[in-house]
Structures are given as structure tokens and as C-alpha cells.
């Protein structure tokens, strides 16, 4: 597990996005560790320089070191990126919390909301670790494109300037441009919420509708995202950036997006259970829909598209009928509704 030079970053989570983040760092000349759960997987990555589970055809940089020894990995790295699914986020956070010190920076890249508690990932990190210098990274970052080195951008948000500048310094010169922000809530909400909209957009695509429909879904989805975010204390301006509209554009239209793909297959008649079982990647939009739906209900927030996605994926309602219901809603004046986030 020893790297030749002093480790500068640890990426926690060997899924597609974690691998992409780590790979970019290593390619950028930053000594990087990638923590994966299974020792055999770590060994395989170190030996073959390939993450066979997610990118069997893509080569990882040789300087990237994988490990399953979380204690040693956490103790070594001044900056940690958390890229684990929201479902296991708390458990992993608690684990790394055993070894973390207040000096370290903790940035997460998980786009979800914890069901039941409605907690954002940064809140979980605060609860499960002693870290205070916490941040969130979010944006249109399809893992495969990042792996191929295509130019991309994301928002890195933290209340601590040091967190933003450290993250920016690590990725400076890489194909991933990081824009700084203070609005952690908005950045996290944008990343989580767009998965719900991607499910709907994918479903519309599956039903054979065209780009006009997808654009309508994305735009009204942005409005709902903003309304929800503002109610939780986000800055509405954040949603006009990479973590908002930027991420919506990529996720709601790209065939590489797992949430879009899930919506697409579901609308074509496949069972949700079968779709999820056939994917080795987590479809965050499904648990996020449940969490947002329940929270919005408890807050008295009107989120018609979230309600429709919940109806389709959780209540067994027909997507086509739900879309028809959405189309039948009163329209009003768009600018006024946007201004009031209504």
C-alpha cells in the first residue's frame, strides 16, 4: 500500500465515480490512494491497473494505489473524498471517523439524501466523524466520460475556504474544473434532486417522447429543485450553476446516466427490481425519491414531478398517466412562478 511519495488524497469508495475521481487525481500527479472494501479488489487494481467491476476496458494510472486497509489509508491522507452510495454512507463515515483527526479535510461526492432522517451527506459526516472541514462536490460528471479524460466541471462547496482551495489545487490542470461555492445545502440538494428528474426524463424517453418533452421536464424539474432547496436553506443561485442546471442537463439526457437509463427501461415495461438487479451501479434516484417525497410532504411543499416519480416507481402507477396528469396541471405565468420558486 506504500506510495512512493506522501499521499495527498484518499478516495473512499471504489465504485465508478470514486474510481474516476481517484484516477483523475493520480493522472494529475497527485499521490492518491483508493480505498475499496474488498482486499481482492484492491490487489487486482494494484496488479492489473484496471477496475474490472466498473471499467474493464479502461486503464487506471499506475501511480494509483488501491487499499482495503481503512485505518492506514485514513491516517495518511490530508484530504479525503467520500464516494460511496448513500445507503452505506453512514456506516463508512462511522468507520473512517475512528481514524480521522480535525486537521483533515473531508469532501463527499455522494448524490443522495438519507431515507428516514432526510439528512444530507455532509450532515452525516458531521454526525459520524470529528471533521469540521467538510465539503461537497457535485456537477455533471458522468464517470465514464471522466475516465476518458473528457473536459468537465463541478462545484465544490464548503463553508471553509480552505476546503475549496485544497480541492481546486488537487484537480488544477486536470480535465475536471472545480468551481468554488459556499452553499453546501444547494450543492448537495442539486446533486441529489437531479436524479429524480433524470428518472422522469428517462421515462419520457422510454415512452418515445422527444427532446421538447425532456426540456420541459428538465426546466420544471429545476423549478422544483429550487423550491425544495430554498425551503431547506439553499441559495437559489446555486441551481443555475453546475450543481443545478449543469447536472440536470447531463443526467437527464445522457444514455450514460444510470438514473436516465433506469427511467427509460422502466417506461418500456421492465420491472424495477429486475432493472436494479441487472445493474452493478447504485441508482440513487430511487431512494432519493422516497426521501424527498416524504420530506416534502411533511413540509407541505408542492413538488408535482417528485410526486409523479414516486407514484411510478413506488406505487405502481402508469408513467404515461402520471405524465398526462402533470400536463393537465394549471400553468400560470412562468416568470412569476420562477420568481416565487412556485
Amino acid at each position, binding site marked *: 500500500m506504500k506510495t512512493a511519495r506522501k499521499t495527498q488524497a484518499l478516495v473512499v469508495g471504489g465504485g465508478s465515480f470514486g474510481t474516476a475521481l481517484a484516477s483523475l487525481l493520480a493522472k494529475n500527479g497527485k499521490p492518491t490512494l483508493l480505498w475499496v472494501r474488498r482486499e481482492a479488489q484492491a490487489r487486482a487494481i494494484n496488479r492489473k491497473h484496471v477496475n474490472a467491476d466498473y471499467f474493464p476496458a479502461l486503464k487506471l494510472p499506475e501511480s494509483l494505489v488501491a487499499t482495503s486497509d481503512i485505518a492506514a489509508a485514513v491516517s495518511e491522507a490530508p484530504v479525503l473524498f467520500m464516494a460511496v452510495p448513500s445507503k452505506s454512507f453512514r456506516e463508512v463515515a*462511522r468507520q473512517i*471517523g*475512528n481514524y480521522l*483527526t*480535525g*486537521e483533515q479535510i473531508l469532501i463527499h461526492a455522494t448524490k443522495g439524501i438519507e431515507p428516514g432522517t432526510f439528512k444530507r451527506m455532509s450532515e452525516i459526516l*458531521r*454526525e*459520524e*466523524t*470529528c471533521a*469540521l*472541514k467538510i465539503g461537497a462536490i457535485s456537477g455533471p460528471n458522468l464517470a465514464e466520460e471522466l475516465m476518458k479524460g473528457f473536459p468537465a466541471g463541478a462545484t465544490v462547496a464548503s*463553508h*471553509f*475556504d*480552505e476546503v475549496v482551495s485544497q480541492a481546486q489545487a488537487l484537480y488544477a490542470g486536470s480535465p475536471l474544473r472545480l468551481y468554488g461555492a459556499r452553499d453546501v445545502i444547494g450543492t448537495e440538494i442539486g446533486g441529489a434532486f437531479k436524479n429524480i428528474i433524470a428518472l422522469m426524463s428517462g421515462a419520457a424517453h422510454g415512452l418515445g417522447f422527444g427532446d421538447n418533452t425532456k426540456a420541459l421536464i428538465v426546466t420544471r424539474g429545476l423549478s422544483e429543485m429550487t423550491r425544495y432547496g430554498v425551503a431547506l436553506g439553499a441559495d437559489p443561485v446555486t441551481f443555475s450553476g453546475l450543481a443545478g442546471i449543469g447536472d440536470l442537463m447531463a443526467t437527464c439526457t445522457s444514455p450514460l446516466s444510470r438514473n436516465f437509463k433506469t427511467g427509460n427501461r422502466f417506461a418500456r415495461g421492465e420491472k424495477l427490481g429486475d432493472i436494479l438487479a441487472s445493474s452493478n451501479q447504485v441508482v440513487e434516484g430511487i431512494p432519493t425519491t422516497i426521501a424527498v417525497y416524504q420530506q416534502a410532504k411533511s413540509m407541505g411543499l408542492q413538488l408535482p414531478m417528485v410526486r409523479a416519480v414516486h407514484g411510478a416507481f413506488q406505487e405502481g402507477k402508469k408513467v404515461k398517466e402520471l405524465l398526462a396528469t402533470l400536463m393537465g396541471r394549471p400553468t400560470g405565468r412562468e416568470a412569476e412562478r420562477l420568481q416565487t420558486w412556485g
Partner: protein
Amino acid sequence: MKPADQKRAVVEVVARVLHDKTKDPNRLEPLIFDTLYEERRRLETEKDRKKAKSEARLYRRLQASALRGGTEQQREVLGELIRHFAEEVLGHFSEPIYRLATQVVPVGLNLLLNTLSPLHLLKAVRTGFSKLDDQILIEGETECFRDLAKRGTVILVPTHCSNLDSPLIGYVLHRIGLPPFLYGAGLNLFHNKIIGFFMDHLGAYKVDRKKTAPLYRDVLKAYAGYSMELGYHNLFFPGGTRSRSGEVETKLKLGLLGMGLNAYIRNLQCEKESPDIFVVPCTLNYQLVLEAETLIEDYLKEVGRSRYIIEDDESTQVKRILEFLTGLFSLDSRIHVVFSQPLDVFGNPVDAAGNSYDRRGRLIDRKKYVAQAGRYHFDEQRDSQYTQELGDSVLQFYRRDTVIGSVQVVARVIWSWLKQTNPAFDLYRLLRTGGSQSSLALTEAYRRLQELIRSLKVLQAKKKIRLDSSLDSDDPVALLADALAHLKSYHRHPVIERKGDRIFHYDRQLILYYQNRLPEIEVAA
């Protein structure tokens, strides 16, 4: 503060503020002239004309000097201004009085508070003044607080609703065996005949809150920070001023609170043997509030634009203070002083041995928060965020350790009933007219009381709130009687009264004020 420390403090405060303010030479001139402008404006209303004349002379001289000179001379002018402020703040601190306070005054304080009730005096002669101890209940993490005060410097940060808060804290500190804490008290408190007497004896230094120049605040902050480094325990109310609405603080002024972290980093840099600074949130809970009528009136007059300094409230009237205390003693009313979980300067809980823990109860090396490559350093943006974290933790404990009594519960029942029966009324109309019904049936009041008590007990079981022993039983009859007796014992005009089988509401401003202390729980119609 010891005389030697006091001299060092002036030198150090001047040096620190001057260093901080001269980092950017371009800011020097505007800072001097803005400060002088603010000061001249203040002098226009200064009552002490002799002092005003002398200060005006000083400011004229400084202005002329700043206008004539270059950067170096302006630096000197700024230094003189800072020194003027620093000497004024520290000049008000009396070492002999502070020493006396640690030995003699608490006994006198006890005596005086006891004698405010004639009945009490009689009892006190027989019982050796033990009654006050029964009525002022000290709860929470007292042992831990006491231990930490021996290990490091403690900043005590209580909630604030009355001018009686500082004498109360002074008394309580004495009772648990701690010396008076340094406390920056508004000049207006010293003008008060009764409270001023105590203030002089509570380790208080005088703060002129009419001095609005930011430079003056910087001097106060630097002084507080330096005193912490020297190991003097500090007391301040982070809410900034008394809660006007009756609500528990939901926002804090973080400037002074942040000086704890500043002092901690400096202590680490100097490798002090006991560098630690601990923060102890504290809630002060009365059934009735001495200045309730004035405070809520002020709040409602201009919500959000209320007066920062009130010089003519109930706490300035000896008679009102006597009435208030007599009422409390005659009713055996309890005042709860709750010392919350002590915290480090980052908002993490601390145990009696001074160890910090994360939220999962794991030990933390708190020095790491300010370390980089083994060195301890300042980072303005980072440190302000740490202080924000600390402030958030303090607020959580304020809510959790607020003690709710019968008056607040009954007020909530009446207020929520008023709102539910008059949904179309806005706040001011409801306060003015009282809505469509002047009373509610006793049976309905009891039902609502029972329901609210149930909800509050659920919160109490979850440790989200504390309840006075008047809520121990679920008996709404006794609870209502207790609340009505309290309200009648002090407030000049009827607030809530029972007539036959109905409850009448009169002073809805006070009902609003007292019910504001409760968290958001609606009572179902």
C-alpha cells in the same frame, strides 16, 4: 484582574489592535476619521458634559494630527485612539472591589436578596438564609463546570432575558464555589441603584454601549481575549441583549465568542501549560420576567428594530424589583440555573477531565483543528466558521436546557386558542382586540393543558426540554392555579384570570411573551 495584569493588558490590547488595523495602510485614514465621526456624534448626547468636553478636545487634537501627518503619524494617532478606549474600559475595573467580591459580597448578596422579602427575612433569621438556596435551583453539569474552571479558562455564556441575570449569575457562581467572572456590563446597569451595586461586585468592567465605533468593539474583544489567555474566566451574553420577544435565543453574536478560539490558538503557540478554553452554555429560567412588559412592548413596536439599550424599564425602578422578588418568594417560585454540557471552542462536548469528544463519543485531539504541519496558526475564515459551529452547539443546548414553567404552558394554551379561534386576524389585530371571544371554557382550557403537558413530557423524555416541578403531575387544575397565582403576584394589570368556569385573557402582549419561551408545539383545537 490583578494590577500587574491590568497594565500588561493595556499594552497588549493596544499592540494587538494596532497591528491588526494597520495591516492595510490604505484603511488607516478612513478608520481614524470614521471613529472620530462616530465619537463626535456620541458626544452630542453625552450627559456627563465635563467628560464630553475633555473627549472632544482629545478628538480635535487627534483629527488635526491625522490630517497633517503621513502614514506614520496616522499610525500614532490610531494608537492613541486605541489606548484611549483601552484605558477607559480597563480603568473601570477595580481590583480591590474584585477581590472583595470573592470574599465578602456573596454573603451580602444573599442577605440582600433575602431581605427583599420581609416574610423571608423572618424565616431567614431562623434558618440561616437557606431559603434562597431552595428557590434558586442550580442544575446540569455543575461538577464538570467546576472542575473545568480549575483546569483551564471558562467562558460562561448564559441566555439573557433580564437585568437580574448578572446578579443571579454572580450569586450562583459564589454558591458553587467559583470566583466572579470577568464581565463587560453596559454602563446603564451601573446607573441602576440596586443592580449597579451588584455589578460593581461581580468582576464587571464597564462597557459604553453608546460607543458604536467598530474600533471600540475591537478593543473590547481584544481585552476579553487577552484576559482569557491570562486565565481569567469570562462571562458574556452571546445573545447580545435581553431577549425582547421572550423567545430563547436563536441567533448569537459571535464576535466575543470567537475570542475563545483566538485565545486558545495563542495559548498553543506560546506552549502554555494549560492552554485550554472551555465554553459553558447556561440557561436562566424564571417563571416571570421582571421587565417582561417593557421588553415585549419594545419588540412589538418595531419588530427587528427594537431599542438596543433600554434605560427606563422595570429594572431601573427599585419598587418594581421589590415587588417582583417579593412575589417570587411568597410563591416559593423556583429560578432554574442550568449549566449545560461544557464545550470546547469548536463546539465539541468536553468531560470533567477536559477531554473533547465527537458526536459518537470518541476522543478528539482538538489541537488538530488549528494545526498544520505541526504548527498552530490563525486562519480568519476558518476560525469564523469554527466559531459558527460553536455558536450552533450553544444554541442547541439553550433549547434543550430551557426550563418551562406553569406560566409559559398556560400562556401557550391561551395563545394557541386565540390564534385558532381567530384565523383571519394578524398578530397586531389579535393583540389589540383579543379576537371574537373574551374567554374560553375552563373545561376546554384543562383539556388543552393536558394535551400540551403530554407533548412537553415527550420532549422532556427525549431530553429536548426541561420542565419545572410544577409540571410533575398531570393535574391541569393545579397547573392553572399556579400560573394564575404567579401572574397575579407581580404584573400590575390582569394578564389571565379565572372567573367562574371561564378563563379570560387581558394582557395578550404578556401572554405572547411568556408563551414564546416554548418550542413550536401546536395545541390541537
